[in-house]
Each structure stands twice: as structure tokens, then as C-alpha cells.
């Protein structure tokens, strides 16, 4: 009986040792297999097919300013492999378009988080979707426009407007309103005179009549006396 239990104990110990070593070996195997350089980050660049057909060749993804380079497949998706845990800045390197860069943090357990790049407050977290999708900021504009001379530059000058426009009005308008035959011209002149002459005393009389009715007459009468 004692022998049986002893051998059973031995067997048990053997099995235990075997199990233990396999577990350790497995863990160790995992350790060497799961080395720190095996994370990969995926993403996609929106299509620039409308601008030029070979956009996938002209664009590449720069990680940390060239520490790693990612290339695009025909649909714009990319993968950057063999990254260790840490923080990386992903930016799109395309000469004609401007994309928003993204900061990707990989923690030691392999969790990947994408957030906006903020160099001034680097601990601020504004998460961005992962797998990465780059946002097009705009077309890169490298040139400034030439200043061309246009006729409106001269016409719209306020000095010109103040002087030339009244001049035109004074010359052009009478030409428009004046008739061809001299009679109607004379009529116009007579009319103008008529309108102008009685107007002046009329207004003065009206004003005086408004304020005081008969007094000026009585005064006049008195004075005549």
C-alpha cells in the first residue's frame, strides 16, 4: 500500500513537473514570439483618383518623419508593420495635397489608440477613429497670384469717381434733355425763367404771411401815410 502511494505520488510529481515545464515552455515560447516589435497599424487615405490616376505611387505614409515608411495599395489602404510600443506621428507625404497628421499610441499590451497631433499640449487626448482615416485639409498652394492690371482698378479709384462722374453728369445730361429745334429751347429757357423768378418772392411772402398776416401791410400803409 505504502509503495503504491509512493509510486502514485511519484507519478503525480512527474506529471506535475511535466505540466509545469510545458506551461513554462509555452509561456517562454510566447515571450520570444511576442517580442515588442510586432504591432502593425492600418489605415486608409481617401482616394485622390479624380486628381491624378497614379496617386497611390505618389503618396506614402511617413511615421515619425521617416523612421518607418508605409506604402498604399490600389484602394489607398496601408499597413505599417513591426512597430514597437510607443507613440508615433503618422502623416501623409503627398506633394500636392495636405492631410491632417495623426498621433498613434501603442501601449505595452498592444492596445492602439489614435488621437489628434498637438505639440503644444502633448498630453491632451482628442481621439480619432482607428483604423486611421486621414482627413484631406486641402490642396497645397505653393504660389501666389500675379497682380494683373485691370481697367476697373482705375475706374473704381475714389478720386476718379469724385471727379469724373460729376463731370460726365454735367456734360451728358443737358445733351440728353436738350431738344433739337431752337424754339423749344427758348420755351425751355422761358419756362425756367418763369419758374425761377416768382419763386423767390413767393416763398418770402408765404413765410411772412405764415407768421404775421396784416402787419406788414399796415406798416406799409402807415409808412405811406
Amino acid at each position, binding site marked *: 500500500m505504502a509503495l503504491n502511494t509512493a509510486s502514485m505520488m511519484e507519478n503525480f510529481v512527474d506529471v506535475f513537473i511535466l505540466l509545469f515545464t510545458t506551461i513554462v515552455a509555452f509561456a517562454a515560447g510566447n515571450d520570444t514570439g511576442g517580442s515588442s516589435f510586432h504591432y502593425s497599424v492600418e489605415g486608409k487615405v481617401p482616394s485622390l483618383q479624380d486628381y491624378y490616376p497614379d496617386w497611390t505611387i505618389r503618396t506614402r505614409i511617413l511615421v515619425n518623419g521617416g523612421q518607418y515608411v508605409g*506604402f498604399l495599395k490600389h484602394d489607398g489602404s496601408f499597413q505599417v508593420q513591426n512597430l514597437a510600443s510607443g507613440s508615433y506621428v503618422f502623416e501623409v507625404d503627398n506633394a500636392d495635397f495636405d492631410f491632417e*497628421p495623426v498621433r498613434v499610441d501603442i501601449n505595452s499590451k498592444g492596445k492602439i489608440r489614435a488621437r489628434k497631433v498637438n505639440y*503644444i499640449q502633448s498630453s491632451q487626448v482628442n481621439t480619432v477613429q482607428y483604423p486611421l482615416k486621414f482627413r484631406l485639409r486641402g490642396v497645397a498652394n505653393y504660389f501666389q497670384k500675379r497682380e494683373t492690371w485691370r481697367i476697373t482698378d482705375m475706374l473704381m479709384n475714389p478720386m476718379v469717381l469724385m471727379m469724373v462722374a460729376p463731370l460726365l453728369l454735367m456734360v451728358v445730361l443737358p445733351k440728353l434733355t436738350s431738344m433739337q429745334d431752337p424754339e423749344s429751347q427758348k420755351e425751355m429757357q422761358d419756362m425756367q425763367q418763369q419758374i425761377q423768378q416768382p419763386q423767390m418772392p413767393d416763398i418770402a411772402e408765404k413765410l411772412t404771411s405764415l407768421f404775421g398776416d396784416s402787419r406788414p401791410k399796415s406798416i406799409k400803409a402807415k409808412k405811406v401815410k
Partner: protein
Amino acid sequence: MAASTCILNFVKCLIILFFVNVSLALYADQVGKFDWNQKLIGKVKYALFDHSTHSSKRIVVATEENVIAALNSKTGAILWRHVFEKTSVGIVHALYNVGNDVVTLTGGGNIIRSWNSATGVLHWESVASKSTATDNPQSLLMLEKKTLVVLTSDTVFAVGLATGKIKWTAEVPNKDTVVYKHFYTDLDNLYLIGTVEGSHVTIATISLETGKVKLQTQVPASWVLLSTTCKMLQSGRLICFEPRMKYLYSLQPPSGDQFVPTALSDVMGQLMVIKDVSFTDLHADSVGVQVAPDHHIVITVDASGQAKLVKDLPQVFGIDNLSGEVIWQKLIPGIVPFQQLGKETLPLFVLRTTAHFPHPPEYAVLGKHKATGNGLLDVFNPITGRCMTREVIQLNYRVQHVSQLAQHDADFVRPVIFVDTNKLIHVYPETATDVLMEAVAHNYLFSADADTGVVTGYRMSLTAEKGFTSEPVWSVILSKDTQRITNVVAKRQNEHVHSQGRVLGDRSVLYKYLNPNLVVFTTEGQDDQEKSYVTLYLIDVISGQVVFSANHQRAKGPVNIVHSENWVVYTYWNQRLRRHEVAALEMYEGRTQSNTTAFSSLAPPPTPIVERQAYILPYTVVAMTTTITEKGITNRHILLALADGGILDLPKALLDPRRPNTPTAEHREEGLIPYMPEIGAPKEMIINYNRSVFNIDAIYSAPAGLESTTLIFAYGLDLFCTRVWPSKMFDVLKDDFDYWLISVVLTALILSSIILQKMAARKQLHAAWK
């Protein structure tokens, strides 16, 4: 309150920056007028002729600059190009042709990518995560079953060709003792061939389907070494070259169990002095043997006398700076560059310019002889490229230090002095000893040793026994144990400072500290807590005085420095906040000038006032330089080569350490831009618009004849040459000057005045006769 003033300042700054931006950009019609650029690929490592059925003949190459490209085989034009990482991660280990695709192996043998060889578009990429990256993995092989096999130093794995999925990964057997370098496949099996130095060659048979090792055989070969060059032919034969007895051994795995020797002399026919042999892949059954005789030119010779490959040696090119075409190029046989602070350099000196007719201009290139290590000097005419002396001058000493004197001799040549390892001074041209005699009293030398961390100053003297010697005068020890010297930057010799000081807002003058003998040294190191730091030292190299030193904790290189006039601008990586930063440093004497006539390091002014400021760069800077003009009147601009291929042109006013946080009226009077922490890269300031230039090593700037213009040349993988006008073209008529409009208006006015005069005279006459 604070927020509103903050916003106000921000708006003001934006307005100022807006004006700064607009004044600097190019016009769209100026593209290509003053600049040219060339996209290059580098030294070719592997080349494949495209066997696909497309009509255009294509060659796909992989180069030592980590670039793969497709070239038109008739014209050499680049059809498409992909630039990998500059570091060892991007080294292209193998290039293989698979139908319409090209497969590359990069990243230490881990990353396989398949590209369409016509368009360059990526099909798939996959990574073998279990293998560890090395610098020397082996090549790929395609099989009939649409599988690619890759061998690295300790694993072999198979990848499916269509999708890139890893089929199996296996460890190589006996990886500690056997070094596997070749493999061969037939329908079912993969044969790994490895060598054990001095004893035998092992052949391991691995199943293609599963990756399991089936069988291992050994073939005795006592002559085999790790450095033995071998080649696996496509027919399955292994050929090795044994250099001692000049034998070629061949083996036919898997059935072969003996090496069959043949003497090389029987194969080659004539006995040449054969030093080194390497093989190239030409056809399935024959092998091209590259033999290198002493002339250092490598030719492939095979049965049909095909492709001629010339091994690359450092070459000198004369390139026309208007068009970019190569006018002449020359090969300097036997020359090897010097190693300076981790970079290879071949110093180039201007001995005589073209300003002294009838003497022809002379330039000199200094290098090391490949075999002896002695100095090698080539003096040539820069216009034609022809050597001025009968042949390359071989110096019979090792050059430790080289410098050029400021005085010139009777023939207007500025001599170059060499200090050899025995501290003796030699001069070229040898007839210039009288100039050297004069120079001995006034010129001092200095050297910085990166290995020992010691900066030493020397003075030159003439002794009776040994001739001209140099003897140390002072030394500064930048401790070697914790830090290492990484940059030594002096000012440019032909630089001219125009103004002695800066006019402040209250009309007083702040005098600049202009020390022509100041040199900037940067060191990078790690302290005891494994935190890296960067230190900057400004040392006067005549007196040895450390004028200023600055330390950046938790910062890392590489440090790009520009040192000019009284300022230093340098970039570094801030490890704690994970961003690139640029620091600007300016030195001033104060409100009074200590010596108004000349600066003397031996009677120096008091320690200068140093103003410093740092800014954030939201991009990676690869190289940096400043503009330079003949008289120094124009503003200074700093040119930065960025990692994404643009070259940024920043005004120095943005990197001014006096930029105030809260500007007062005085600051505005002085013209200081308010402080903003980030210096952006607006697209208008990129001088190479959309013609990206990658992997730039350095940018060189040179003064042009006109005061307003600086010539810029950026080189590295790609070349880019242009002109910049930091203060706009103030001494030249602008290039859209309306010659036509002005001349038309002028002639119209003249004609009308003549005609009207005549008409007026006629009218007067008529009126007189009435």
C-alpha cells in the same frame, strides 16, 4: 482679460505672418525658371530585366540608397520610384521577378511586399513576425506552386504569392553551428545549404507543404570558410570559389555528396592576378564571374561577353547650375573618403577662383588612398575637369588635419596645409613656404577628437630640425565617458557681416558679439539614469575659452546646426514631449563696443550677453543651412530640408530670440514678431513646390554676384538647385516688368505730342490767315 490680449496677439501675429508669407512665395509661371531638380536612385544593388509581356522595355532596380525603381531601358528615365526608410530598416535585401510583379524583401528580412512592375502599385505586404530582423537575410525564390520562400538567419518561411499570407514558418536546424546562406527547391522539397567553417557543408531537406525538416546530410569540405563566395545556379548546381588555390568547387544537391574541383586558370584561359571574385546572375546554366584586377574596375566576363558593370568609386562631377546637366565627370582611382564624426567626407578646396586671368581656376579634392591610408590630392580645373598636375598627387604621410590659409601666394593660390600624424606641417603648393612662414605667426589650428572627447588647439612654429610643426597650446576635455562629440561647426570663411549691432526701439544700439574664432561643438550623451541629453559648447579656438555652454536634458540628436554672424540655430528632438524643437541663440556685447577696430581672441571682450529662445517644429528637419550674400546686407533666411521632401525657407526674424511674449511699443518699433510657440511650414514657403526631394544629406548655399540673390543646392538622394531672394529682388528689375506696356505708352505719347503740336501749329496758321 488675458484671453482677449492673447487672442489679440494671436491675430496680430497672424496678420504679420500673412504679410511675411505673401512676400516670399513664387509665382506659378516662375516654375522651372530658376530651379531644376533631378530624381536619382543611387548605386544599383540588384537589377531585373522585366520579362512581362508589356511592350515598353523596363528594368526594375533596387539600390543601396534603399530605393526601388523602374527604369525605361532605352532612355534611363524613371518610370516609378519608391523610397524606403533611410535607416537599416529600409535596406532592400532581395528583389525578385514574379510574372507581372516584383517582390521585395526589406526590414531585416521580415517584410515582403509585392508590387506591380508596370505601375508600381503595391499589391500586398506581409510580415513574418516570429523571425528576428537581421542585416543580412537571404534572397527569395519562386516555385511552381506559387509560393515564395525566404531565409533569414534563423528562420525560413513560405509566403503565398497571390495574397501574401504566410503559409508556414520554421526554424533552421542547428542554427547555432551552421550558417545557412543558400537554398534550392524542386517540386516538393526545399534544400537549405549551410556551411560549418573548416569542416563541411550541410544540406537540410524541408518539405514545402508543411515546413518540416525531413532530412539532413553533410558533405565534407575542409576548405570552406564563412567568407567563401558561393552561388546557387538556377539549374540547381552550387558553385563556390576558394581563393587560396583558385579552385571552383561544384556540387549538385541533393544527390551529390562530393565537391568537384576545377582550377580557375583552366576556365579563364589566361592567368590574371585575381584578388576577389563575386558572381552575378545571368542565365540558368552559365555564371558570370566578376574578376577584380588591381585597376579597381570590375567587369563581368562570361561566354557571350554580356553586361559590363563598373564598381562605383567616389567621383567628382561638374554640373551646370542653370540646367542641371553634367558637363564633366572624373574618376579618381584609389581614393577613399575620410570618416569624420560618423560621416564620410572628401574635403574640397577652392585654391584659385576665376577672378585672376590668365591663371586658370584650381580646385583640390583630398582623400585617403585605399591601400596605404596616405593622403591623395587631386588638383583639377573646375571648368573642364582636367587634372592640373600630371597625375594625382600621392602624399607619403597620413593626413590628420587639413586647413586652408587665408593669404594667397604670388600666383593667387590659397595654399592648403596638411598636418600629419607626426604633427609635421606640409603645404600644397610646395612653393608656398613663404606664405606659410607669414601665416605661422597668426594662424592657429584646432582639432576635436570624437573618440577621446578632447578638443585641442595648436599653434604652428618653424623649428630647425623638423621644419614646420604644430604644438598643442590648450585643450578642453568634453568628457568621453558620458558624452560623445557629434558636431563641430565653425562660421563660413567668406561670410561678411554688414552691421555691427542692432538698433533697438529706443534708438540705442545693441552691439553684436562677433568672434570669428568661435566654433560650436555639440555632444550627445546619456546620464546615469539612462536619460539622453544634448549639450552645446561655444569655444574660442584660439584661446580655448568656453564662451558659452547650454544643456538640454531629455533631448536627443541628430542636431542640425547653423552658425553664422553672432547667432546659432540648432534643432533637436525633445524626448519628454516627443516633438522636434529649434533653439535660437544670439550673443551681444552690450550697449558699448569693447574694441571698435579689430577683434582679438587674446584680449577678448567680456563674456557676452546670450539671448535664447526655443520653438516647436511640427515637422522633421533633415538638413539646415542659411543664405549668404557677398556683402551681408540682405536679410538672412534659414533653409530647412524636411523629411516629406520639401525645402522650407524661413526668415531669420522668426527665429529671433528677442521675440517678445507681450509686445510693447518699443518692440513694435524694432520690428519684432510676437512670440508664438510653433513655427509652421506654410506651403508658400516651400521653395521646391511639388517637386519633392527625398533623403537630403545637406544644403549648400553660395553668394551670387548680385547682393539680393543666394544660390541654393540641395543634395542627397535627389538634387535640387535654385535661387532665393531673402529681401526680394531689390537690385534687379522684377521678371514680369511690363516692358511692352511702357514702351507702347511712351511711343504713343511721343507720337501724339508730335501730331498735336503739328495740328496746333496748323490751326494757329489758319486763324492768323482769317
